[in-house]
């Protein structure tokens, strides 16, 4: 870039040439601002395939002095901004959405989110609005289909007279210089967000059968469409405490001194937001806004567990709730009564996760019945009494757990509840299959309100077979079941062992931290793997020594390479490779052999069988990498399993995948390397 003096001369030049050059440069800055932002965001959320020039060199985007590996897969979607020309029309906002969906889950899997208390909630149920009568969308495997937007980035050029302000007098080199800073900070910021951690976690577990992948899409938006995301999945709470957590996360992320500039006032029921200070240009300010979910602790769980928890509730004598709408709120969320108060099913306001009775993650119902007599008219007294009798016994122990967040090495609650440490089940943190029964049960101890009797686990006897009354100890088993699922359900990467206690859901909020270590440990190894591995993208790029920090490109040379790029691009467009690429959530490119699943007619029966088998196992032998939510899988590694068992296993369990792969071949697996955006085979 020329020095300041030279540029000002150019700006003052009245010759057509000078102005034309300025216009060209202004357009270039706008074009590359949009495309680079999109590239940077997508590169930090997905493995983008590299692009090679015809000389075999790695194509890179060097704009704003931040070198990124370029890719071809965004070209189509970015057309509108690549050819941006102010003289024709002003560009629309460019919106990048990062989301997960259940397109690749089979019918026996469900997408669940773990809140910071360790409870799991079925995402599809939470998202399915009040329209209970409408058929739920399904994916191609017949499972529930849903999509959750995790981040929505809006890149837009605002009006020059807008509040953010353009700066007609701003010299383009200064704009470029400030753009450098902005893009560096965007790069860093992308890796502070909770979705980044999710991305790495999902990327690490490449053997998860492609069940869950971060995906992205680009689209054009109306001027303020991004702010009107009223009913979409980004702002839909997936669990009752989510709205509270959003505010907390928001305030944690910023130092108070500078918070006013960097954020809008948090909406109590909206997503978290971040706003980059605009880059002011003569054409107007360039904004990058973000709305995001602070809780992105998504995992794939087996529907078996969901069903089993339903049986729990029924046996307990609790009435089947009419959808989630009517679920009374948990006591700890009473401040959200307006949103989640016990409501008739017709209520459409947000949004208690539906079907909480049988719900995967909803201990809420049990807690509710146990403690909050006045709020729930549907709470059967029987369950209430039962709960309180055991609850009082649990109370003290629970109290220790809850407030005892400061206590040192996080042990499973088992240790602190010595009176209830009974039986092999209780002593095993890895707990075996019976934890599936209680998978829906959240940790009792998380309640801060110690006056209430926490839990809630319905007698395990209600779950198939094994746990019938004779073997059931009301307090002992109950406690152990409470605690084990906590560990079992703790979604991985977020939950770290005692030493590192960042809140599990990826949010830096310490609120979740106290409860994290309790649930730990089986994922310690996984976590460490996650954090110790270097960036694959960067590692790949490190071989390109010529690109890194090397001689800079002048803007002029960027122009030249643009021409080259355009030529290359045209070639690419003609190639069938690019033509075949689509930005589709799922290309339907692989079929799933469903015959294996034909055996799964009687889920509860199978579950019972597996539970009985696994209860005989030595629980302690479970390898730490097991994902405990999928309990039947735990037993598979150490006992002979009938052939139909594998389907119960979570894809996220690496060991089971290895076995499955050997048994079944890869036809169930998606291409692990590529985001499911492409219909083409890789």
């Amino acid at each position, binding site marked *: *870039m020329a*020095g300041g003096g030279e540029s000002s001369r150019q700006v003052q030049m009245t010759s057509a040439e000078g102005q034309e050059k300025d216009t060209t440069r202004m357009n270039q800055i706008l074009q590359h601002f949009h495309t680079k932002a999109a590239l940077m965001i997508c590169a930090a959320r997905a493995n983008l395939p590299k692009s090679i020039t015809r000389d075999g060199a790695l194509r890179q985007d*060097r704009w704003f*002095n*931040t*070198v*990124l590996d370029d890719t071809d897969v965004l070209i189509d979607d970015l057309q509108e901004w690549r050819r941006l020309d102010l003289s024709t029309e002003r560009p629309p906002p460019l919106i990048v959405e990062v989301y997960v969906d259940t397109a690749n889950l089979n019918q026996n899997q469900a997408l669940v989110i773990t809140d910071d208390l360790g409870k799991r909630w079925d995402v599809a149920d939470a998202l399915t609005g009040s329209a209970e009568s409408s058929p739920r969308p399904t994916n191609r495997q017949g499972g529930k289909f849903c999509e959750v937007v995790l981040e929505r980035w809006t890149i837009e050029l605002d009006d020059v007279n807008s509040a953010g302000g353009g700066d007609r007098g701003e010299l383009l*080199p*200064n704009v470029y*210089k*400030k753009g*450098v*800073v*902005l893009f*560096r*900070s965007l*790069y*860093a910021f992308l*890796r*502070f967000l909770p979705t*980044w951690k999710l991305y790495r976690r999902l990327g690490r577990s490449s053997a998860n059968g492609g069940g869950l992948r971060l995906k992205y899409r680009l689209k054009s938006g109306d001027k303020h469409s991004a702010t009107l995301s009223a009913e979409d999945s980004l702002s839909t709470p997936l669990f009752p405490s989510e709205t509270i957590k959003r505010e907390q996360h928001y305030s*944690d*992320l*910023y*130092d108070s*001194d*500078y*918070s006013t*500039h*960097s954020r809008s006032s948090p909406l109590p029921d909206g997503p978290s937001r971040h706003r*980059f*200070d605009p880059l002011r240009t003569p054409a107007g300010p360039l904004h990058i806004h973000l709305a995001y979910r602070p809780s992105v602790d998504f995992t794939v769980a087996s529907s078996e567990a969901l069903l089993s928890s339903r049986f729990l509730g029924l046996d307990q004598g609790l009435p089947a709730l009419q959808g989630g709408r009517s679920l009374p709120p948990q006591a700890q969320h009473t401040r959200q009564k307006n949103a989640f108060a016990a409501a008739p099913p017709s209520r459409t306001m947000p949004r208690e996760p539906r079907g909480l009775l049988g719900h995967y993650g909803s201990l809420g119902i049990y807690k509710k019945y146990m403690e909050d007599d006045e709020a729930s008219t549907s709470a059967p007294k029987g369950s209430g009494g039962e709960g309180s009798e055991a609850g009082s016994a649990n109370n003290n122990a629970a109290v220790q757990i809850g407030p005892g967040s*400061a*206590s*040192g*090495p*996080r042990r499973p609650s088992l240790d602190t509840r010595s009176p209830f440490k009974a039986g092999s089940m209780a002593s095993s943190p890895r707990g075996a299959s019976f934890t599936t029964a209680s998978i829906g049960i959240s940790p009792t101890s998380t309640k801060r309100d110690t006056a209430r009797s926490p839990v809630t686990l319905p007698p395990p006897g209600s779950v198939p077979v094994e746990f019938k009354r004779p073997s059931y100890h009301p307090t002992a088993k109950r406690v152990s079941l409470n605690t084990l699922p906590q560990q079992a359900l703790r979604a991985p990467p977020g939950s*770290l062992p*005692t*030493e*590192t*206690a*960042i809140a599990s859901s990826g949010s*830096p909020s*310490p609120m979740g931290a106290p409860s994290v*270590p309790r649930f730990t440990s089986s994922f310690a190894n996984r976590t460490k793997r996650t*954090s110790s591995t*270097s*960036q694959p993208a*960067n590692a790949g*790029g*490190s071989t*390109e020594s010529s*690109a*890194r*920090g*090397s*001689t*800079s*490109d002048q803007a002029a040379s960027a122009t030249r390479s643009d021409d080259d790029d355009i030529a290359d691009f045209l070639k690419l467009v003609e190639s069938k490779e690019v033509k075949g690429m689509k930005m589709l959530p799922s290309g339907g490119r692989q079929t799933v052999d469903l015959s294996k699943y034909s055996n799964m007619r009687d889920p509860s029966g199978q579950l019972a069988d597996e539970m009985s088998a696994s209860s005989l196992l030595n629980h302690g032998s479970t390898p730490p990498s097991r994902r405990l939510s999928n309990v039947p899988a735990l037993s598979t590694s150490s006992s002979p399993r009938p052939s139909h068992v594998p389907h119960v296993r979570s894809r996220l369990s690496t060991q089971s995948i290895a076995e499955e792969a050997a048994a079944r071949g890869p036809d169930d697996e998606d291409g692990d390397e590529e985001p499911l955006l492409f219909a083409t085979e890789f």
Partner: protein
Amino acid sequence: MEARRPPEYTLELSADRSSVKDVVKGTPCSRILSSPVADQSTGILHTIFFHRFFTPVYPQTHDVLDLTLPYVSEDDIESLVETKSTAFIRALDTASTQQSPQYNPKAGRSTIVVQFLEKKRRKAGWFGVKGEEETVWENWIIEVTLSSARSESEAVRNRRTMEKSLQTAAMKIVTIVNKERDHIPPITTNETNPFPYHILINPRNDGWSKLGIF
């Protein structure tokens, strides 16, 4: 312009003394930098440089306390940051072992200061000699507070505090660099890094602020 003090941005980190000591005591140099304190300092320093190194950079990242931070893979910066981090750890250790109250009323707190300078052409002096003078246009003050854990539970809590403080500091950098863009001097070259930099360790409180006013 010269008379005005350059902006100062303060970042606060907390570090657990016990972990620092364990690593520093009798360990080879390479091990020192694996201590959380060193990691944090290095991480924050690199994050600052990442936003102030204006030549084209291929971003790299590293993980510090479960936070992914960018770093600048330039030899000059890398070696300088390493050197200064090591010296900083030693200074921390020295300060922490000297418990006498007279030594340092803020015992347990140490400071790294990063300064960015610009080269300005000095107007022709008496002898017509043109030269360049360097003026500081930005100061980053990193205050590291040591905490010590007397029990394992306290160590856990300290660890959490460390992580939290690191995240807050990193986020603050991002916020500051975006909010304050107007004071960055014009860049006249794209070949080399236009802004020289200094890293100072525990500069005297009364003295370093004057460094910005040469």
